[in-house]
């Protein structure tokens, strides 16, 4: 009879009208690796935040190491023995590995020479497999994978009982991912427990003892890995009902590509790619983080460095070097991070919508408010944005409406090609349906649309056909009839059949 190290039951967490978690139960035994899987928006981050002490506003039972727990902050959780490695790194690039590992915390020496720090740090580096690195190296010289490992080393230095890894290999290559997996095995041998949150089902099957599946804020199942197959897992994750939000998939009618991408080699891809983009269809680029799909889109739009390549459109051969070039060629690009470069927060929605096409609403340099309002109203109608709020600050909108504005503003240039990365990240279900409808309408009107997404449902049900990528390599093309969740999933997680379903 093994006692639970961590036990959560009837956990409910709401933010206003949104239920992030509903009656979730979750437990972890000592010395086990528990996988946590679920689609975007299923509640994984909310759950992880609660366990890690970032969120104390939940209801339900939370027991850790035999004691009731409701941490007022991550520092308290760390003291109790829980550590989280987040997706965003919190390393200081200008400082050395040793200084980063022993930066903060109760057991960090107050006075120490750099040499002492380097000595103290060695066992932790060994633990995460970085023993070959000189602790005096400054972090900015390390690869992304090595940086992630340094971050984990920092957490290990506080000797946690439970380590939560949130998408640890999302940005990593093959070798680094293997290092992480080996590290997890070492930790578990010493009696620690690990919660492994990931989309990479091949890794989940490789190292997890049990898997908890979340869907729509509920814990749908907890199974032993050995008792589960990939398709069963996918079914549990996706469910059936939500397919209704997608309009029926279009099949393209045109045989002539609108835009030919030839020999494009963005940084991040292992080899150059050729892609044909047809008008009237939605082309899907499927691949997980680090597969290169996002890089391709931003490269086409002139926003990413490339080693070579060009585009052919309307008989012209060219390669955008700046976003302006792409805009002039009627290519619109909407990145995956609207807060970073998709929206002008602090300015009215009206200005956001017309920001791409100032030339259309000015005469000799002077703004023409009637034209501006007309243009904005048209776009707002097309995207189901509320007209009466055009003058409000873009910052007060909900995620879904913000995304509509971020996407919608590109209609002002009458684009021939629309490239979107993660069209519905952080968007509620209702707005998602509206965005899908609009994309469909645009495609039917003859625009060529390319969507890159890590959301399995979205990439299965929205596009006409798929090109799948895996870790920087194009691995396959799936035509209209070959598109299915399983096919796609296999291609983007394990195209070479490397994962065996045993430990």
């Amino acid at each position, binding site marked *: 009879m093994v006692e639970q190290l961590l036990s959560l039951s009837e956990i409910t967490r709401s933010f206003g009208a949104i239920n992030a978690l509903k009656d979730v139960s979750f437990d972890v035994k000592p010395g086990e690796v528990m996988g946590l899987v679920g689609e975007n928006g299923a509640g994984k981050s909310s759950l992880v935040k609660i366990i890690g002490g970032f969120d104390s506003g939940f209801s339900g039972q939370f027991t850790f190491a035999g004691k009731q727990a409701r941490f007022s902050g991550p520092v308290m959780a760390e003291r109790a023995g829980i550590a989280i490695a987040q997706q965003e790194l919190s390393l200081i690039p200008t400082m050395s590995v040793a200084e980063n590992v022993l930066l903060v915390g109760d057991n960090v020496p107050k006075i120490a020479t750099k040499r002492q720090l380097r000595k103290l740090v060695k066992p932790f580096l060994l633990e995460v497999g970085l023993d070959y690195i000189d602790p005096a190296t400054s972090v900015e010289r390390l690869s992304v994978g090595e940086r992630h490992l340094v971050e984990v080393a920092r957490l290990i230095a506080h000797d946690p009982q439970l380590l939560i890894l949130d998408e640890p290999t999302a940005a990593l290559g093959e070798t680094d991912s293997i290092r992480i997996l080996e590290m997890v095995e070492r930790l578990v041998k010493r009696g620690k427990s690990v919660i492994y949150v990931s989309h990479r089902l091949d890794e989940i099957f490789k190292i997890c003892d049990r898997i908890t599946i979340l869907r729509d804020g509920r814990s749908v199942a907890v199974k032993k890995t050995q008792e589960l197959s990939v398709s069963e897992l996918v079914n549990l994750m996706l469910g059936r009902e939500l397919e209704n939000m997608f309009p029926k998939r279009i099949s393209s009618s045109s045989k002539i590509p609108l835009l030919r991408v030839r020999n494009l080699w963005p940084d991040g891809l292992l080899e150059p790619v050729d892609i044909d983009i047809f008008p009237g269809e939605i082309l899907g680029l499927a691949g997980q983080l680090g597969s290169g799909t996002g890089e391709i889109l931003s490269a086409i739009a002139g*926003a990413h460095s490339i080693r070579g390549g060009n585009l052919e459109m309307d008989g012209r051969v060219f390669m955008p070097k700046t*976003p302006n070039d792409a805009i002039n060629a009627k290519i619109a690009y909407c990145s995956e991070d609207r807060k970073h470069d998709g929206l*002008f927060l602090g300015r009215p929605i009206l200005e956001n919508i017309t*920001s791409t096409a100032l030339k259309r609403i000015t005469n000799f340099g*002077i703004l023409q408010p009637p034209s501006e309002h007309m243009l904005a109203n048209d776009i707002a109608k097309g995207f189901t944005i509320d007209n009466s709020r055009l003058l409000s600050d873009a*910052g*007060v*909108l909900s995620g879904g409406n913000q995304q509509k504005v971020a996407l919608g503003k590109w209609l002002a240039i009458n684009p021939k090609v629309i490239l979107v990365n993660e069209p519905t990240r952080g968007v509620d*279900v209702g707005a998602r349906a509206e965005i899908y409808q609009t994309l469909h309408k645009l495609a039917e009107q003859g625009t060529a649309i390319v969507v890159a997404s890590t959301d399995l449902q979205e990439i299965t049900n929205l596009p006409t056909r798929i090109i799948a990528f895996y870790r920087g390599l194009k691995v396959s093309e799936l035509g209209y009839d070959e598109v299915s969740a399983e096919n796609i999933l296999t291609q983007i997680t394990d195209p070479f059949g490397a994962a065996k379903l045993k430990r």
Partner: protein
Amino acid sequence: MSSASQPINQLPKPSILERLVQRHSKLAIALVVVFIIIFVYGMVTAPNFLTLFNLKTIIRDAALVGIMAIGLTFVTLSGNFFLLSMKETAALCIIAFATGMASGWGFELSFLFTMVFALLAGISQGALIGIGGNPIVVTLGAAGVLYGLGAYWSDNLVVSYRRPHGAEWLGTGSFLGLPNITVAFILIAISAELLLRKTSFGRQVYLIGANRAAGRATGHENFWMAIKVCTIASVCSAFVAIAFSAQVSSAQVNYFSSEFGSSGDMTIMVIATVMVGGNSIMGGFGSTLRSSFGAIFISTVDNMMVLHGFNSGPRVFAVGLMIVFSIIVFAILRRGSRSEE
């Protein structure tokens, strides 16, 4: 999981007062109220405050700093922080103008001559900032260079020119009972505001200031914007230099340095004016109208203190206090209103 398709964050529309109190921190409101009380008290008890002459004096005293502040506002709104070289640009330009006048070139030619220098100063600083140089450091260095050039040119001596010299109308003339410099201030303030609100250039200023990355993604690069706004600021500095020189029929490089006005240091006064008006240092929010009011506001407080008989020490202190105060209040306000995201 909710299936609602209604946007969640739609605020109901309460009255303006309710919205103010709802959204902004209590502390900020308390500070502002205390300030208003002190201000009104000072206004009411100052001798001769509410006379027409005094009010005209307030605006006239605000004019020179105000015009420079309007120019600097463009830089701030576009997200390029501020220039620490305003007074040095003015120093170089005042020498240029006075040299022209002393050589007998007449007003128009000297004016154009001076503007050439303003353009050069603006374009070069704008280009350095546009390719990624930090505005503070670049303009700090440029300040030393500009001042040195001006001093070298004039051998650090006073350059003067005899009356009548053709520039009196700007320096000491008046129009409809207002000094011409005040008229210039008002005209510049109005045209700057129109430029910001009604032109695509103005719109670009706000967009790039609000989010430089989004600006680049939508085809608006900061490189050209930095050059343009730095040039506007330099031209305004040059204008002020010319106006001041016309008043005193002379020029020396240190006219705008510590000894200028009771509060000293033109650059700091100009920056203070932009901030006290409530423009966001990060850009994307504010207006030249705010800076104009900031100039008038500071001038009013200074004027009140003079009427009450304070020396320069307390007056400088009061300006400093106003700057710090407005910074703190705006910091609290913005934190209070942004925490919704």
